[in-house]
């Protein structure tokens, strides 16, 4: 089990090799990628920033919770920091389990909780040259602090 913040490109093939386990009948992976639009605005690139020691600590807590709730064998989650281009991998999660149900559910739990709790921030750079820290607006529709779906 590992939750890691990295400023390097994520290499899923290499990460998957570390999850080899013949007890596992299932391996579910999730890729979060940089999307070209958000809330109807054209996105050019993203910056991610993290409070690394606490992000890794809170991330590990989430993995422990996922393992308590679901019968999984191993979980690996890697999240990027730094400047990312469209299509780049921002977050990658893999869960191995004896059976697929637990693997799917644990994977969903990890990404949902990570988005809500781990101290990582995202700044979007838009096609019109403007920028915005997501969820940090103090006026307008995002000002309630509600996270986008």
């Amino acid at each position, binding site marked *: 089990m590992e939750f890691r913040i990295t400023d390097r490109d994520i290499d899923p093939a290499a990460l998957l090799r570390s999850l080899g386990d013949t007890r596992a009948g299932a391996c579910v992976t999730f890729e979060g990628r940089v999307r070209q639009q958000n809330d109807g605005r054209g996105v050019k690139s993203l910056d991610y920033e993290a409070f690394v020691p*606490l*992000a890794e600590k809170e991330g590990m807590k989430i993995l422990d919770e996922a393992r308590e709730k679901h019968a999984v064998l191993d979980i690996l989650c890697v*999240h990027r920091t730094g400047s990312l281009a469209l299509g780049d991998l921002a977050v990658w999660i893999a869960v191995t389990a004896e059976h697929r149900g637990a693997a799917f559910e644990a994977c969903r739990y990890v990404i949902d909780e990570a*988005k809500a*709790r781990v101290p990582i921030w995202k*700044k979007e750079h838009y096609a019109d040259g403007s920028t915005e820290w997501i*969820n*940090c607006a103090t006026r307008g529709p995002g000002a309630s*602090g509600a*996270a986008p779906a």
Partner: protein
Amino acid sequence: MKKSVRVSYFAILREQRGLGTEQVATEASTAAELYEELKTRHGFTLPGTRIRVAVNDDFQPWSAEVREGDSLAFLPPVAGG
């Protein structure tokens, strides 16, 4: 008496402050008082209700006491994934 603490800012707070980490001398007794002091001094836009605080690399309640030598981090609403 003033205490010396290390304060870290992230994301929008880091940009509004113009730096990521600084040493601050303060008479604030709680993390909440320290944030209000710094918010006024630097014009931070986010109210304390939307921020979380970490003391010495762990989440803490706003009522956490500020002690000499502490490291405090002010954390805007997160947006990973």
